[in-house]
């Protein structure tokens, strides 16, 4: 039998790696800095489009935004994945075990933001938490925060709206997760959890997936994650930026002002549209940016984005295996109410 090809470690010379990473970082900074000037030159000087025409500004917007967001995603996902490789769902559960509601909700929401977690694992994680004695509402805070405040949303907000809006989003999203989880816990909804969850006996010996990783492993994970995420989201990203560019160039501001009143109904309509819609932050944010440029208030725009990323049909279908329908409906209603409240609050203060 010939196993040499598999046994040999892949070529990754640790000695040269820091140099390569430093080189990549310098290239990244340069690319990010010259992005605007580069597309100014290509679109307006080389291609000869007029910046004052709809076509010119739409083409420029599309190319510039695509490059900027691709760069931001690559850089931040790489760094965040490495930082997160020191955390794991197992460690999170250990940190939550024995916590009471209240403090537990706050800790769970915070951990939901930093723990590497894929919504495809939502069901085993839910069972694992609840069977280990983590209260239902605390588990919910974790499950709400995880998709709502995720690294892609943070990166894109940072790139498109700056750090103030980003901080508001993180604080707002975490607050929703804390309060919604607390409310769901207080409602005593355990009767609507499928009984087998409480009967599950944990017989395996849990292993900590963050333990025993070398720096090389963590860097490999970072590279792999960037690749996976970019491959997964590029169609959403291009459609989102394309739509954004079209609105940017062709929809007049007056139209938005006429049709999307900033008053009472704006946020309600935004959340009503956002809940059934499902996309990731990468697809929705370029659209959000354009709508905001056209005069839609920040609270309305953020409420729309939150309802798109936090509540998704695929995840509800998965959760249906462990939660009965009334609990799923309550879950959606409580989270949507939280998003509405945050939307109105942001419209008031911003």
């Amino acid at each position: 039998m010939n196993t040499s090809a598999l046994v040999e470690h892949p070529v990754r010379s640790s000695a040269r790696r820091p140099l390569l990473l430093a080189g990549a970082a310098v290239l990244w900074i340069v690319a990010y800095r010259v992005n605007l000037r580069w597309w100014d030159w290509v679109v307006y000087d080389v291609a000869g489009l007029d910046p004052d025409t709809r076509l010119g500004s739409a083409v420029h917007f599309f190319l510039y935004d695509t490059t900027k967001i691709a760069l931001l995603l690559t850089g931040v996902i790489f760094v965040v994945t490495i930082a997160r490789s020191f955390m794991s769902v197992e460690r999170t559960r250990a940190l939550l075990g024995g916590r009471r509601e209240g403090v537990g909700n706050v800790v769970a929401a915070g951990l939901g933001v930093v723990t590497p977690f894929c919504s495809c694992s939502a069901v085993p994680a839910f069972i694992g938490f609840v069977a280990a004695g983590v209260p239902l509402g605390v588990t919910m805070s974790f499950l709400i925060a995880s998709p709502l405040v995720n690294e892609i949303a943070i990166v894109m907000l940072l790139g498109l709206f700056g750090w103030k809006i980003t901080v508001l989003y993180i604080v707002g999203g975490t607050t929703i997760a804390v309060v919604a989880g607390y409310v769901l816990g207080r409602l005593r909804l355990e009767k609507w959890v499928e009984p087998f969850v409480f009967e599950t006996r944990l017989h395996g010996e849990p292993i900590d997936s963050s333990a025993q990783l070398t720096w090389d492993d963590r860097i490999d994970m970072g590279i792999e994650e960037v690749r996976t995420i970019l491959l997964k989201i590029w169609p959403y990203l291009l459609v989102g930026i394309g739509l954004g560019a079209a609105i940017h160039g062709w929809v007049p501001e007056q139209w938005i002002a006429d049709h999307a009143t900033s008053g009472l109904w704006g946020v309600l309509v935004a959340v009503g549209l956002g809940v059934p819609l499902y996309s990731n932050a990468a697809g929705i944010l370029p659209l959000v940016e354009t709508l905001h440029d056209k005069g839609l208030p920040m609270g309305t725009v953020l409420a729309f984005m939150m309802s798109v990323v936090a509540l998704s049909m695929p995840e509800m279908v998965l959760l249906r295996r462990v939660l009965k329908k009334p609990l799923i409906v309550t879950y959606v209603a409580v989270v949507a109410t939280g998003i509405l409240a945050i939307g109105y609050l942001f419209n008031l203060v911003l």
Partner: protein
Amino acid sequence: MDIKILGTGCAKCQKLEQLTREVVAALALDATIDKVTDPGEIAAWGVMATPALILDDRVVAAGRVPSAADLTALLAGTP
């Protein structure tokens, strides 16, 4: 050897299964490979991040796909 792959059907779970089959074939191991997709059963193993790999009733990897080299070492090291 009894190998179980725990996964809810995500892309990484399929990758782990494929890789495991390749390594088992390359090492010419006498092994049975089962896929566990039931979330209750996955959780009962104490696994909360899929995919996970179980060798003879012991969880050896969870939450990520080990490299081919690591997987070979794991599989070759078990009698």
